């Protein structure tokens, strides 16, 4: 996923019908190339009533981007936030660049170009006013959508200059001065989500709410064993039910690495379609997929741990010799299960196929991927596919996979001219998820006589295909690998029939638990606590380049140490305390540390308070949303550690069918969460993910210190 700011944009201004001034901003990237032709509509529109319409280009999944990106434009355009209306963009990567919700990338990739676009538009309005009033542009100021000339006392709304502004030359980006952050009136201020009023009125916003004239509904029947092949079925009993219109066999549809067979029942009502699935009498060929089971995975991991990793990831110094020569050695195995996304809005999509073209309404995080998959599935040209982005009821990475779009497209093709909505029921949503990979880490550490960590080894047995870890299942070089003289990291890859996917803070959500847990053990062996060990390891502030070939950003040990000290100060860290745990992690360019306090209650363990300190750069663009993202990250972290985000796989079958088997945190268990953000002189980065990994580590370490039993397997299960 592109995370770099390799963006350029083309700004065009034109006078639209009715006197609106339209700024058409094409945000193309080197990767997508320039827009194919003139775009319809405009990115930013200054309306005759002086209100401003801004297009929200990225998918909204609850991360607040629909509010955040327009804030950047509005700030530099210098209009009042109350005068801004926001509309969701169609999918058009040639125009908007990548339209993605994932990887906490929206902030780093858009921070500069969005503000520049707003500033350029403002400069053209100012130039038009200067021309009209016959004064130098430098004497004009703007505020809240008005141009003022102090010397003459003249002021006028932007809209008065619409026609003249549309004729101005577009300023060169190099000549633009962006606002001094001290003058920000929108950025850094708490702004409510733009859809919040519609949400509390229950208005249709989500994919599942799509309603089109003549629309019919589809429900899926899939085999118990993921990936099994449809052998036979009898559609007649289903078709005999009132309201059932069609039974459609689907064969090998979905993401390229995880196609499925299924039966789709189409009916006047989704409930009718869902009920009719019970009488389909389908049989399936497992083709050996039932050999995939947790027990077999664990046995294979144990066997692999006895040998060398299949694929080396990083080698520094000579870990084997350093370990052998160290004064004290530690070894431990850490494991975690497959985990599902369980977005509260189940996967769904609506489509209408007619005359070789398809139009879709989809709650997706990666519409471009959806379009490509549909093009391949139906053999269509990209120009024949139109995608409307709906709000998504959660994403967490699930909607980066577009299997449900491909399935809907394949169903719609069988119903030409008829809109059809496919909705997974909860069981199918679990069965058809793309799971966070389970993992088995074997750690080895060597300490010298003074208790210093001198050698570190991590052999991860993970999942994937052909020796290549699957999505989010790779081993990244993470603390402490880059901080010790002798390190050795490697992976061994097992195969599974359940496909893998990106789950919020992919990789990091598991690695933080395992590595910070093991380091907590190392710290104890060295007679220290983990934050002190971390500060020792981090040493002097410096930038550590990522390993060659890695796409990770550089790691700043000074920023890491600062957030560690900040959370220690906030939580009044005073050495080892039963029930208290610490965790640090660097992911998605964000530096976060957490402390958790847990206690025993009602036969279980309950987090009482969690402190979080973070550094995501100079600016928290929307503090109101930032607070939610961080709290949500901590609460999801509790799900990983305590509630039981665990999907057992037995004989090729996903063993979770509904929320009773997949306990997510409820309101009665959430702890107090104290947040402290450190500002640093760095461009702001994203907040959808980086607070979660250290919270997971802190909670797990808190449980270990409370029970006196090292928690080496997630989730915690009371003995």
């Amino acid at each position: 996923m592109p995370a770099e700011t390799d963006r350029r944009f083309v700004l065009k201004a034109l006078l639209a019908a009715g006197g609106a001034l339209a700024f058409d901003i094409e945000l193309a990237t080197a990767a997508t190339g320039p827009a194919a032709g003139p775009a319809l509509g405009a990115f930013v529109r200054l309306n005759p009533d002086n209100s401003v319409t801004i297009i929200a280009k990225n998918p909204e999944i609850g991360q607040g981007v629909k509010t955040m990106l327009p804030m950047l434009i509005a700030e530099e355009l210098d209009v009042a936030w109350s005068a801004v209306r926001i509309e969701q963009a169609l999918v058009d990567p040639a125009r908007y660049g990548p339209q993605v919700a994932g990887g906490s990338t929206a902030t780093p990739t858009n921070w500069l170009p969005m503000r520049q676009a707003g500033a350029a538009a403002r400069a053209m309005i100012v130039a038009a006013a200067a021309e009209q009033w016959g004064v130098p542009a430098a004497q004009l100021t703007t505020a809240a959508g008005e141009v003022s000339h102090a010397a003459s006392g003249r002021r006028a709304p932007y809209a008065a200059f619409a026609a003249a502004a549309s004729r101005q030359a577009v300023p060169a980006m190099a000549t633009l001065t962006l606002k001094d952050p001290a003058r920000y009136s929108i950025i850094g201020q708490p702004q409510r989500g733009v859809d919040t009023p519609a949400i509390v009125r229950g208005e249709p916003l989500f994919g599942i709410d799509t309603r089109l004239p003549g629309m019919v509904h589809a429900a899926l029947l899939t085999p118990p064993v993921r990936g099994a092949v449809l052998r036979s079925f009898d559609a007649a009993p289903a078709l005999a039910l009132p309201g059932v219109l069609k039974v459609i066999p689907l064969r090998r549809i979905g993401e390229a690495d995880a196609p499925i067979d299924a039966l789709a029942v189409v009916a006047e009502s989704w409930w009718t379609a869902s009920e009719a699935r019970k009488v389909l009498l389908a049989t399936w060929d497992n083709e050996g997929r039932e050999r995939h089971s947790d027990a077999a995975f664990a046995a294979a991991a144990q066997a692999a741990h006895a040998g060398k990793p299949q694929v080396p990831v990083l080698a520094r110094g000579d870990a084997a010799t350093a370990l052998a020569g160290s004064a004290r050695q530690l070894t431990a195995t850490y494991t975690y299960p497959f985990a599902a996304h369980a977005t509260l809005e189940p996967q769904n999509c609506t489509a209408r196929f007619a005359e070789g073209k398809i139009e879709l309404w989809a709650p997706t995080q990666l519409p471009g991927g959806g379009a490509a998959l549909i093009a391949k599935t139906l053999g269509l040209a990209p120009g024949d596919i139109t995608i409307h982005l709906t709000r998504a009821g959660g994403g967490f990475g699930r909607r980066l996979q577009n299997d449900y779009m491909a399935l809907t497209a394949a169903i719609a093709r069988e119903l030409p001219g008829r809109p059809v909505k496919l909705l997974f029921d909860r069981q199918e949503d679990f069965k058809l998820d793309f799971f966070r990979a389970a993992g088995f880490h074997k750690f080895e550490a060597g300490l010298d006589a003074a208790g210093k960590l001198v050698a570190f080894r991590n052999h991860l047995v993970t999942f994937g295909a052909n020796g290549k870890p699957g999505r989010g299942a790779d081993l990244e070089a993470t603390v402490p690998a880059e901080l010790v003289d002798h390190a050795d990291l490697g992976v061994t890859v097992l195969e599974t029939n359940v496909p893998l996917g990106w789950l919020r803070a992919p990789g990091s959500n598991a690695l933080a638990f395992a590595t910070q847990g093991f380091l907590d053990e190392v710290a104890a062996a060295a007679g220290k606590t983990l934050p002190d060990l971390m500060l020792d390891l981090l040493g002097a502030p410096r930038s550590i380049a990522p390993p060659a070939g890695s796409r990770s950003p550089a790691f700043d040990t000074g920023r890491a140490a600062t957030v560690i000290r900040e959370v220690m100060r906030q939580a009044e860290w005073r050495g080892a305390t039963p029930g208290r745990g610490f965790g640090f992690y660097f992911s998605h360019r964000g530096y976060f540390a957490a402390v958790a306090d847990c206690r025993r209650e009602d036969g279980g363990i309950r987090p009482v308070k969690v402190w979080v300190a973070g550094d995501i750069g100079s600016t928290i663009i929307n503090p109101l949303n930032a607070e939610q993202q961080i709290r949500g990250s901590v609460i999801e972290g509790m799900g990983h550690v305590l509630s039981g985000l665990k999907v057992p796989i037995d004989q090729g079958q996903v063993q979770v069918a509904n929320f009773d088997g997949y306990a997510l945190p409820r309101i009665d268990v959430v702890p107090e969460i104290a947040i402290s953000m450190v500002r640093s002189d760095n461009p702001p980065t994203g907040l959808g993910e980086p607070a979660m990994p250290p919270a997971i580590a802190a909670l797990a370490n808190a449980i270990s210190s409370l029970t006196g039993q090292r928690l080496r397997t997630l989730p915690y299960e009371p003995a």
Partner: protein
Amino acid sequence: MKFALTVNGKARTVEAPGDKPLLWVLREELALSGPKFGCGQGLCGACTVLLDGEAVRSCSTPLSAVGKAKVTTIEGVGATAVGQRLRAAWVDLDVPQCGYCQAGQIMSAASLLAANPRPDDAAIDAAMSGNLCRCGTYHRIRAAIHQAAAGGTRRAARDGETGHAG
């Protein structure tokens, strides 16, 4: 079968099988898509509506069981003072993240406040723990219920707040 319902104060007639869940009657026959489908088994609360003022899971309530009870959905909850205050508090505190659970949350909160006009945290937790929020907006849900209960003032709303970014 034909059923006569009162939904959000209006008389409605629907033609549907008696075992069709109220959720799908509302969403499909009556175009009220505020109540959401989350689990279909009474486990998440996304589909919560009021029957004579009391919260029920519409996914697990067959149409035939509704009888003469008055149905209130998120679309109609603003007709009561409590409903209005809840919606206003939800907006004021910007409770939603993705927003998918929030209709159900507000309906459960409306039922709670009807029975207990000034609930403490424990009463809120007890009444709201059937409503899952996958995004984890629980602190603000609690704060918004306090704010609505207090008649819409901010001070009470901050009771449940425990930290601020930035």
